[in-house]
């Protein structure tokens, strides 16, 4: 029994659409919920479409719910961590790939070893350290422990190793030292890997939960993930505001996903395939 090509095609779209619907349903319900009045939220059957969207929940989340502040804090900390990881990884990756120095291999193994230690294992003493440094409730306390990553150094070392030795030789003849070569040639050539690392770092930093929870208690320093936690416990009659806050918290990453899908996929799959 052979079905016609058109029918098969329609069937494929149907399957994909059903799957997409299942994946997105929780998101859809959340967006709808954020646009309803609290009393509409409790109505049964649940409302599937906001006929009269109430955008007020967003402004309420932004001001009363401090989401403006939370988002700003998350942006600052994420920017610090992403930039910091890029810089330290580029520098170390270059050293491992292009320079010769005693104990290079040992130091490289040390970098790799950091990937074996989950951050959760180090929180006890790190909290103490950050407190001792008077970094409790500061951006420094939130960001500095994450300014380096073994994974990033490894990723960029691999990228720099791909640069043909002839390019380095040609630059040497023209008098470009290592630092100039790094800026003018190596970094531009490693751009795909650097972009992948940037997106990867951004994602990790934006989504952090445990550490910001530990080192901040001042609302003015809390990040958006912890902000969600604050809202979670609010009353049912404000749940639309909670949902609005949730949408706000996810929005930057949704934009990131749409704009940088390629880099994101590269960053997330390094090591998974091909290994």
């Amino acid at each position, binding site marked *: 029994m052979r079905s016609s090509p058109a029918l098969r095609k329609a069937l494929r779209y149907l399957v994909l659409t059903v799957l997409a619907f299942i994946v997105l349903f929780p998101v859809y319900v959340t967006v709808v919920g954020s646009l309803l009045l609290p009393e509409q939220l409790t109505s049964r059957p649940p409302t599937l479409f906001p006929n009269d969207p109430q955008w007020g929940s967003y402004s309420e989340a932004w001001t009363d719910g401090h989401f403006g502040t939370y988002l700003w804090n998350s942006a600052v900390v994420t920017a610090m961590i992403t930039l910091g990881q890029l810089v330290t990884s580029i520098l170390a990756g270059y050293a491992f790939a292009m320079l010769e120095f005693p104990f290079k291999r040992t130091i490289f193994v040390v970098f790799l070893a950091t990937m074996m230690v989950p951050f959760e294992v180090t929180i006890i003493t790190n909290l103490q350290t950050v407190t001792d440094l008077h970094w409790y409730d500061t951006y420094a306390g939130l960001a500095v422990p994450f300014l380096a990553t073994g994974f990033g150094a490894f990723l960029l070392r691999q990228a720099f190793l791909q640069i*043909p030795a*002839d390019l380095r*030789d*040609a630059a*040497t*003849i*023209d008098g*470009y030292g290592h630092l*100039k070569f790094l800026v003018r040639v190596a970094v531009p050539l490693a*751009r795909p890997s650097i972009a992948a690392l940037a997106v990867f770092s951004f994602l990790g930093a934006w989504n952090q939960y445990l550490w910001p929870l530990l080192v901040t208690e001042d609302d003015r320093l809390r990040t958006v993930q912890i902000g969600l936690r604050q809202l979670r416990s609010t009353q049912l009659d404000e749940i639309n505001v909670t949902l609005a806050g949730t949408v706000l918290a996810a929005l930057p990453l949704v934009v990131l996903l749409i704009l940088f899908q390629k880099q994101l996929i590269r960053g997330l799959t390094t090591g998974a395939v091909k290994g």
Partner: protein
Amino acid sequence: MGRVAFDHVTKRFGEVTAVDDLTLDVADQEFLVLVGPSGCGKTTALRMLAGLDDPTSGDIVIGDRVVTEVAAIDRDIAMVFQSYALYPHMTVRRNIEFPLRSRKVPAAERERLVQEAAATLDLEALLDRKPAQLSGGQRQRVALARAIVRRPAVFLMDEPLSNLDAKLRVQTRAELVELQRRLATTVVYVTHDQVEAMTMADRIAVMDRGVLQQVGPPQEVYATPANLFVARFIGNPPMNTVTGKVVVSEGTVGVQLPGGRIELPDDVAAAVKAHDEGEVVVGVRPEHARLDPEGPLEATVAVVEVLGHEQHVICRLKDAPPAADAEGATDDVAGAVATESLFIVRQPNDDVAPGIGVGVRITVDTRRVHVFDAGTAGQRLEAA
């Protein structure tokens, strides 16, 4: 100003000696080709000249100063790499400009020099492209433009033509020589291709296993190879080299080869005489042998290669040792086919080609015969 010299230069990488006591002078505005099989040390020699590798001992002279201690940028050289080493993220213009930027050449001057170099190599229309948008030949020209843009006294070239297709290579060979004459600079050119060496060089320097074998004008190296290695490496099809036994009788000196005996002319005979009853290697260029029913060497035709303008009749000398026995010899001269059991005769295409498997006789032009010591060095034997 553009003189270059290696003065007893040796380079070791750990246990391996890549270049062994190299002494070589290159005159100003000379086109010198360093040629040899891969691993012979030619590229290492060039890299030492460029300042990319340091000699273990000995000195390097460029112009009138010793530059062994001088950084690459201050050596007044430019290098063209086999891979061209173009920066893929920069336009052609930026690539050509790159050597000028590090030397703090003012922008206006830079622009003028880039234009000039681009005009010389016919690249004006391509200045805003990236290397990936260029053909192989265009990339090669960009690499040349980048080298000439700052008018160095010496050009170093590392197999710059080996990534071009055969037709373009022939054309570019001529263009390179012409460019060198026009710019009046010294060129040190490294290649494994003896045809490039023969066609482009003012002088050839043949290297093998880190040791300089012979230096001289192409014709001289071709006509009087200093040893067996050079004899087998230079020339295509390669020189026939056959081991035989020296026989001295009644004032004549001959060599008993598989397939027959040949007599040597007086000048060579004098040098060979001392080897009476010993082994020597006789070398005969394929164009100095011909099929001749009266010839002294007996052989069987193995293959006939018809090239259009000429034919190569590849024969097996009677009683020649099987190919396997000569294996060692071919290894030594990688590239140059020197299977002792085969003997190539080159003849005009109009001549009638014999059938395969037919018995033939070969005569050789004994005045053009080369005789080499059968020892490992394979030194040329000639009258002192």
